[in-house]
């Protein structure tokens, strides 16, 4: 694989199989342009500068405001103690930050992230990492339903079990589940990768447009238009490398995982720009 350049490798991994021709969808983000990596208003933080928040007597707005206050002071490593399963903690962080929750989060934790590296020592409730765009979130215990809903980028990792509709409407990025995932995982998935090391519930990948789901355990059944794909060396290599980043491995080895992709009998991306559509119609 060393002979493959990055673009070719990603193509071989199935990241650009869509038959896109619309001009808007052909504009890709360029990591070469450093200005694209940070928002102009993002605070400059020093990862060696650390701060701590005790969330026990604070509500979720106060905890989030305190995270922002510390970031504005240049603190780049923040630990939140006693999060107490409160909802919507650690949301909307759009710049680099090392954020650690010493405990569990409630619903909608770590949503709308674009850049930070987050660790959670406990559990997360429903909709963790929703609409995440970049960064990493690593959860040590279990997660609730709609884990990683509409995620667009980054790595969202739960070492335990997660609930139903994991990665619903996933548009990019990687979701990794160390244990079991519930029914309708990958529902209407559009891009990105989902890795389930344990069993997957009913209707896996139902109505998925694109993207790839890897399953290490048993699959209850596949949803509409989800089909088994052929595992390649690139898949196995990617899985091994990616899982190793988070200290995970498939119980039966990456080579024995099942790959699920879209059968593309139902998908219907609109490839035309509105002006082009008028001409066609």
């Amino acid at each position: 694989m060393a002979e493959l350049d990055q673009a070719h490798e990603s193509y071989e991994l199935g990241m650009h199989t869509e038959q896109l021709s619309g001009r808007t969808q052909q504009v890709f983000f360029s990591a070469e342009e450093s200005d694209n990596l940070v928002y102009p208003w993002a605070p400059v933080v020093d990862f060696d500068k650390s701060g701590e928040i005790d969330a026990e007597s604070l509500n979720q707005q106060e905890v989030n405001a305190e995270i922002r206050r510390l970031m504005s002071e240049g603190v780049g490593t923040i630990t939140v103690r006693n999060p107490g399963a409160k909802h919507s903690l650690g949301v909307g962080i759009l710049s680099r930050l090392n954020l650690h929750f010493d405990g569990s989060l409630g619903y909608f934790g770590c949503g709308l992230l674009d850049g930070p590296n987050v660790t959670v020592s406990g559990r997360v409730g429903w909709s963790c990492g929703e609409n995440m765009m970049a960064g990493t979130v690593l959860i040590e215990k279990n997660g609730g339903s709609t884990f990683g809903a509409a995620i667009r980028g980054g790595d969202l990792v739960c070492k335990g079990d997660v609930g139903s509709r994991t990665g619903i409407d996933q548009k990019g990025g990687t979701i990794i589940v160390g244990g079991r995932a519930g029914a309708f995982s990958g529902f209407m998935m559009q891009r990105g990768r989902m890795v389930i090391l344990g069993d997957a519930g009913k209707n896996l990948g139902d109505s998925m447009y694109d993207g790839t789901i890897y399953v290490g355990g048993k699959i209850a059944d596949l949803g509409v238009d989800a089909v088994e794909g052929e595992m390649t060396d690139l898949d196995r290599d990617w899985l091994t490398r990616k899982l190793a980043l988070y200290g995970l491995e498939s119980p039966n080895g990456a080579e024995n995982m099942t790959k699920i992709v879209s059968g593309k009998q139902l998908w219907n991306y609109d490839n035309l720009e509105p002006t082009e559509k008028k001409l066609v119609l």
Partner: protein
Amino acid sequence: MCGIAGLIHRGKSSNVGRELTDMLQSLKHRGPDSTGFALYGNPKSGEHVLRFKVAEQEDMRHGFQIHDQVRERRAEVDRRLDELGARRVSEEEATEYAYRYWISYDGDMKKLADYVEDVEGAEILSIGNALELVKDLGDATVVSGQYGLGEFGGTHAIGHTRMATESDVDIRSAHPYWAYPFNDISVVHNGQLTNYWGFRREMERRGHRFMSNCDSELIAVYLADRMERGEDLEEAMHRSVDELDGVFTYVVATSDRLGMAKDVMAAKPMVLYESDDFVALASEEVAIRSVFPHEIDTYDPYEGEVMVWQS
């Protein structure tokens, strides 16, 4: 949206009134319209606890006659209990319109329930050896304080905070629902049943009565009906997951058991904590944290799952 919660102590009693109050208060944001408790105390041999009301809270704010009417209705309930041979061992006024009686009665419970509820404005909230069902308008702290539930000792309890969506804001539409006329069975529910009317008509044809138009009441009546036909609680719950249509998570309790069931879409939340001597479950983990503030391991039950625990 609604919030539901339940807890059960295995092999011991505890202050379940206070514990459930704390859990439901932390779920207030899921439903501020009314709060209900089904508490399972320590039964007295040969006695039933009868919880009933003779007016709605709203009624007490209107009209000059209501206080006289409440007195007359209660007197009529007493007369009918005496007529059926139900001995009133002791009586308490929980509020000015709701009462808690201990009765000694070994006759037909359905006949007693029907005869009492035939009194204008009267509704039996529960009859049981262990079950005491309390529900009213307001949040958990208000209702618990109003009915003096803070010191209630028992083995298990279930409760509900209601956001009214498809029926009125009144006590009649509040959860939990007692599985009339069966002793000690109660249900709380979060969700919507889409085949409610079909099953309701079937249950009514089989002689069951409904006090509200709330779809949650159907679950209690459905389970009672299946158990009347010889199924045990777990069998009836599994059947309900197959037959009831819609999105739902419900919690049911009997004299010595607590159970939960989720529909096959798992569209309504439930978080569960289980240890060797205690089980707590709720719509959100914050409710469990009100009983266990320290870090605990919790998980979500899966789609179509049915679980039952013994006290």
